[in-house]
């Protein structure tokens, strides 16, 4: 059991990982385009509430993935401790989020969707992504002045389920309930604001929405049950990382493992391979795991 995720279990090597990254990226880009996110006006409508498609797509995706992780880990197929979780830096992520949101509505695209917009031939997408590159460079140039703030509020990896001492599946179920309620509110809002803007509201989606809610509800219940059936041992902090491949080190430092290692607050940026363990304590983890 616990054979997933594949890469941290050494099922394939670094170069295969890069190739798979391109394929996963292709699926990501294809889906974003089909979601309508290659076109800035579609995304901008979210912020005038005339079409809350961004919210619906994003939260359906988050619920699907969270519930999926809850089910797979709840029944022991996926080792949750091997899943990389971004570290929490309170003030930088709140301030960064506010500035990011401002940039989002000014451009009408976000970094990922600007790639898709560019791929669709929309030059505003290409220019947005060039802007994102420039912004990253500007950040680096003023980094010495920002470093204090950048490293402030470092809490390490904080997962809401472990913070609340609840199974992952239970929290995933909670996120599902919240999303389902928000979908109904969002549809109501877009009817009101479309009328106010003199536009047609987005076409009725109640059948699909109810279908999606029913399907996700079923999976969420399974995740909830699985979360209580399969009692997770708390992620164990550990000293030595077993992450020889650079991509693993990069992944570890970029987002840091779900092990709550608070010893490396700067690990979000610094490629220090020893900083953040991704691989679980079992030495040869392929057959390891505790299910």
């Amino acid at each position, binding site marked *: 059991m616990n054979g997933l995720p594949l890469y941290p279990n050494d099922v394939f090597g670094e170069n295969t990982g890069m190739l798979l990254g*391109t394929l996963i990226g*292709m699926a990501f880009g294809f889906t974003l385009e089909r979601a309508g996110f290659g076109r800035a006006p579609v995304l901008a409508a979210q912020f005038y509430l005339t079409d809350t498609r961004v919210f619906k*797509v994003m939260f359906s995706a988050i619920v699907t993935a969270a519930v999926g992780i809850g089910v797979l880990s709840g029944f022991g197929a996926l080792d949750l401790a091997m899943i990389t979780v971004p570290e*929490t830096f309170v003030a*930088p992520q709140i301030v960064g*989020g506010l500035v990011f949101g401002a940039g*989002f509505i000014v451009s009408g695209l976000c970094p*990922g969707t600007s790639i898709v917009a560019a791929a669709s031939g929309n030059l505003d997408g290409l220019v947005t992504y060039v802007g994102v590159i420039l912004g990253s460079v500007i950040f*680096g140039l003023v980094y010495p002045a920002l470093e204090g703030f950048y490293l402030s509020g470092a809490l390490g990896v904080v997962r809401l389920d472990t913070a609340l001492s609840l199974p992952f599946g239970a929290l995933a179920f909670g996120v599902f309930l919240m999303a389902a309620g928000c979908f109904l509110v969002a549809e109501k809002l877009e009817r009101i604001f479309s009328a106010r803007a003199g536009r047609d509201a987005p076409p009725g989606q109640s059948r699909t929405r109810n279908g999606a809610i029913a399907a996700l509800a079923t999976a969420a219940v399974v995740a909830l049950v699985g979360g209580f059936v399969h009692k997770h041992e708390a992620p164990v902090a550990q000293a030595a990382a077993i992450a020889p491949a650079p991509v693993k080190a990069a992944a570890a430092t970029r987002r840091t493992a779900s092990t709550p290692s608070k010893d490396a607050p700067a690990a979000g940026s610094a490629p220090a391979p020893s900083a953040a363990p991704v691989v679980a304590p079992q030495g040869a983890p392929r057959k390891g795991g505790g299910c």
Partner: protein
Amino acid sequence: MKDTPATQTPIWNPYVAGFVLGLVLLGSFVIMGFGLGGSGAANRLGIAACDLVAPAATEGNAYFGQFAGAGKRVLHDWLVWEALGVFLGGVLASYSAGRSSLGVLRSEGVSVAQRLAFALGGGVLMGVAARIARGCTSGQALTGGAVLSAGSWMFMMAVFAGGYLVAPLVRRQWR
């Protein structure tokens, strides 16, 4: 907004698109052990360009130096390959849907130059912000949200708050 010509494949129902997107994200977690990203590749592309123009200054920079320098291959990174995939997937999807056309997407409210200035300015803001927050809508909101990271949920709520606060100021662009 323009009507969709009959030759275009319509975009998906948002709940269906979200479900498929969630499966892609879940696939990334199950296969790689981590999720998706959008701005990480931009950061590395920028650093690679700086390293090409001014290697000494780049490698001496406190932030860039973490990515570039002896023995470090700044572009040899999963997020760069993934971003290349996003582009290829976007080409495939837009072309096959009949939505692929070269131009600047704008409303009547702004000129082409203004639209591109907004695009550039918004991009710069997001580029800076994504570095401060350690990720963007893909790496933080979507990916971190799905693994229930506290900071990612804070980021996500702040993104919506920032967007709604500034939206009235740029309404002209979307009219």
